[in-house]
């Protein structure tokens, strides 16, 4: 019974994979917003490069990008296009008002960086609406996707990464800030939030080739 259920889920995952498999590479443009309680960062334009099977690079146009370690590079392609995993059904759930099938992906490769991925798949449109991924090195990430005009390729218009952050405090001897522990009201307001990175894509150039040097 479990095997039959698993096969069903493999079928669904394979349909999603087939959609994503249409994309060999892409260059996308968009904007990046970093929301971390102890980081004051401006919104910036970014360029995202992807090449099969798992090359991924996000570059901020003229500026420093701050991203959760390992988190953003864990994209759908790297999750769903891996062959060595078992798919287990885990019920149904509603994501952003859309009915989804919950599928847990367990890698069979012991060396895999990903320990467990939970995909919330929109069966009707064969799109992953949400993914919760636990990694060996970098903790758990929740990725929520919103689709628009590139949904035929399974490429989202908006991706939101949620992750846990550690506490931040530096000794005054390092920062040379000796003028008291003044906290701004903005700081208090945001103190208990989780980390969040939001990428809004404005355009994709799909399957037009991407130079490998971009990923170095």
């Amino acid at each position, binding site marked *: 019974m479990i095997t039959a259920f698993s096969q069903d889920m493999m079928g669904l995952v394979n349909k999603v994979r087939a959609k994503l498999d249409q994309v060999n590479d892409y260059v996308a443009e968009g904007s990046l*917003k970093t*929301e*971390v*309680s*102890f*980081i*004051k*960062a*401006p*919104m*910036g334009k970014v360029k995202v490069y992807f090449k099969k099977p798992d090359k991924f690079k*996000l*570059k*901020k146009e*003229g*500026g*420093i*990008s*701050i*991203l*959760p*370690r*390992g988190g953003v590079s864990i994209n759908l392609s790297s999750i769903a296009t891996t062959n060595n995993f078992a798919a287990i059904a885990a019920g149904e759930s509603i994501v952003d008002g859309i009915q989804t099938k919950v599928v847990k992906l367990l890698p069979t490769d012991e060396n895999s960086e990903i320990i467990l991925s939970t995909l919330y798949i929109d069966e009707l449109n064969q799109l992953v609406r949400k993914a919760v991924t636990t990694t060996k090195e970098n903790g758990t990430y929740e990725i929520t996707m919103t689709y628009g005009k590139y949904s035929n390729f399974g490429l989202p218009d908006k991706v939101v990464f949620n992750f846990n*952050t*550690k506490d*931040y*405090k*530096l*000794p*005054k001897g*390092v*920062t*040379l*800030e*000796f*003028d*008291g*522990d003044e*906290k*701004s009201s*903005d*700081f208090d*307001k*945001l103190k208990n*939030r989780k*980390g969040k990175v939001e990428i809004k894509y404005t355009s994709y150039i799909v399957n037009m080739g991407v130079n490998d040097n971009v990923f170095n």
Partner: protein
Amino acid sequence: MWKLLQIELYKIFHRPRTYISFAAITALIGVIQLGLKMDGEAYIDFLMSNLKDTFEFDGKILNGYFVCYIILQLLLIHVPLLIALIAGDMISGEANMGTLRLLLTKPVSKTEFMLAKFFAASTYTFLLLVWIAILALADSIFLFGTDDLLLQKTLYVVQIDRHDVFWRYIGAFCFAFLSMLTVTALGFFLSNFAENSIGPIVATMSIIIVFTILSTMTIPLFQKIQPYLFTTHMVNWKEFFDEKVDAQNVVIKGSIQNSQKIFNSALILLLHIVGFVSAAIFVFKKRDVLS
């Protein structure tokens, strides 16, 4: 007045001692820039070690703006000592050489004489800061290029867009000029009370050192008096490098987190300058010049 100022400037800039400060600044900034050029990435790794476990950074953190910030942080504590060398000598130096009484035989008022002396010392302070700006900012931009300015504060990290940095440095240097002018005014005031330069110079340096220590120690007793020490306000040029954020914690470009603090500190420093110079003129006018 203009003639008096020209004479005073001539005297300042024809003294070899004046150029010690410029040479010291050049050497200090050069050493910092050389060190960061050779091994700056290791320094950045050390600074970022707290964050690099959780975050990946892509971009040039070690850039000209960042180097300039490090230099200013280290240097603006020490520059007052160099300013004291000239400011503390303005009146006492003349007394020591026996030229003070001779100068006052000219048909100028004591107030004019004192103001010309103070403006000359202020010009020296201004030029020293311009020299720091050229070496610390322009030279660092040339050597390290530009990018966003990423600063680690004690409780949070601030990233300032590279197009939003330069005007902050202009503001910071203007504020630093006000800070250094306070030291100039203090040295100038103390210069009234001695017949040789060593006393006022050492006294100015001592006051700066003691006040700076009191300003930086987080002991409750000292914290009560810190708002009344001008050295506490002298470091507030750093406030130009903090930004406001919106409800989503996204930086509002062109904003300053605590502009009121800058304004208050600038006002306090200005009051100190006016106070020290007025007191110096008052004391000098009452003084019977015998040397």
